[in-house]
């Protein structure tokens, strides 16, 4: 019998306590943030959309290697002597850029915002910003191209490198031929054809 009334007492008292708490809470200020109109101050370390400052990028591929989900895709073209990358050819810290970055895409559909790509960057050109509103209707729109070269210039640079390579090869071939000639002079006859073949090979490659 005692337990019976204790039961009732406990039920009533605990319910009363609970109701008092919820009633008190009614007069507290609401914690809701009405998002589009009202925004939180984001901390400065906020990790959201990546940004790449192409002025400083030297195309070293470190970030792409660090990425656990391989969402960074970098394609580079070697600089031909006489040509400069960007306007100055150096980063803001004075590092020389030796590569044209023809393609620097980050797929934000894959990105997991882990910040692993930020730390290995030698020029600190890739970093996370506080932009978090970039949803799109198409998944392909989440593929961001950071390279400042247009496809045409990229193709041009590629062609320049190819031409340069061809020229180099020609020079090499010439040098080789000359060397062959010299050696042929020294040792005539059968070796000649072989060296020729070799120079052909270098040309092809």
């Amino acid at each position: 019998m005692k337990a019976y009334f204790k039961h009732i007492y406990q039920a009533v008292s605990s319910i009363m306590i609970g109701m008092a708490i919820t009633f008190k809470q009614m007069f507290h200020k609401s914690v809701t943030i009405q998002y589009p109109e009202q925004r939180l101050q984001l901390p400065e370390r906020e990790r959201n959309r990546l940004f790449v400052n192409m002025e400083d990028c030297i195309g070293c591929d470190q970030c792409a290697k660090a990425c656990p989900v391989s969402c960074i895709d970098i394609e580079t073209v070697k600089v031909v002597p006489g040509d400069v990358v960007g306007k100055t050819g150096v980063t803001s810290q004075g590092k020389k850029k030796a590569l044209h970055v023809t393609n620097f895409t980050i797929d934000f559909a894959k990105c997991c915002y882990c910040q692993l790509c930020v730390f290995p960057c030698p020029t600190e050109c890739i970093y996370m910003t506080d932009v978090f509103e970039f949803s799109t209707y198409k998944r392909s729109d989440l593929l961001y191209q950071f390279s400042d070269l247009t496809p045409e210039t990229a193709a041009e640079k590629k062609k320049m490198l190819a031409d340069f390579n061809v020229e180099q090869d020609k020079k090499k071939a010439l040098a080789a031929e000359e060397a062959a000639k010299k050696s042929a002079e020294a040792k005539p006859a059968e070796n000649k054809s072989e060296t020729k073949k070799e120079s052909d090979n270098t040309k092809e490659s």
Partner: protein
Amino acid sequence: MAELRTEELTINMGPQHPSTHGVLRLVLTLNGEIVTNVKPVLGYLHRCFEKHAEAMTYPQVIPYTDRMDYLNSMSNELAYVLAVEKLLGIEIPERVEYIRVIMAELQRIASHLVAIGTYGNDAGAFTPFLYCFMDREKVLELFEMVCGARLLYNYIWVGGLSHDITPEFITKTKEFIKYFRPRIKQVNNLLSYNKIFIERTANIGMLPQDVAVNAGVSGPTLRGSGVKYDLRKEDPYSIYNKFDFDVCVGTGEYGTVGDCWNRYIVRAYEMEQSLRIIEQALDSIPEGDVHSAVPKRVKPVAGESYVRTESPKGELGYYIISDGSLNPYRVKARSTSFCNLSVINQISRGHMIADVVMILGSFDIVLGCIDR
């Protein structure tokens, strides 16, 4: 009168069910409202963590561990990182250890708040759920301030941390501790000591000590059964041996030791202890550089290590085999919820459907951790 034909009813609870905490599927066999058999079906959230890890370098695995038990990423990272550090055999600066402990304990509070809140929600009380989430939000804001992310931090690195903490963080954390103590009491009064809640959870899902130990149950679920076993005390990793705190066990204040209520209340007690640890750590945190011990490239020698830590949900272990290359040869996660969930069939037989929900909630499972 002829005998009425009766048969057992099979009901599919999940994968889409409000209280299976994710995409767990329970095939319940019912006799009326009484459950005669529970068959858990896992794997709806399987993301091949272990297979992925074999193709990653050691630091790259850390974001994947975040996603295992996504409610306590810090503890996952800590366990994994400790295992890798054991392989590498490197010394960690004191400051790093302190910050790790602070983070892990804050994470424990956040995780327990979700556990308590969702448990209330399972019981049908929605208001405590939101109160808990309000407080959890404050913890997440602290994390956001330190590492920029709210849920998946990638904060604890092999050999260090991604960022040092700021003085602002310390003051904010102290403020939070001051704010949070009365809030624990409030939630306890609103939910834990509510008669209806006690009725719903006391003497439900009895998990006796010997069964619990034998089934590899760990964490608050084990301590709810009265086993005073906390890896932070028994097998101290990091610098937990420097702090003074109590291991909370289910006391049987209501119900009996080993039931849902005791499993639940252990979490409420533990939050208090976590606050104590954080306070001590904040007061005695030394100066130092958090990046000093971070290796340039993580390339341990061939070997293996197994480290187990006390994550908020229980014993979280990482078994890492290295073959001397940049990628781990094998990473096996001994996930807590996986082991805890395995006793569900045993302890929910003979209870009602509503109790199965309560039993499931009292384990505080996270499907990301179970399915990996």
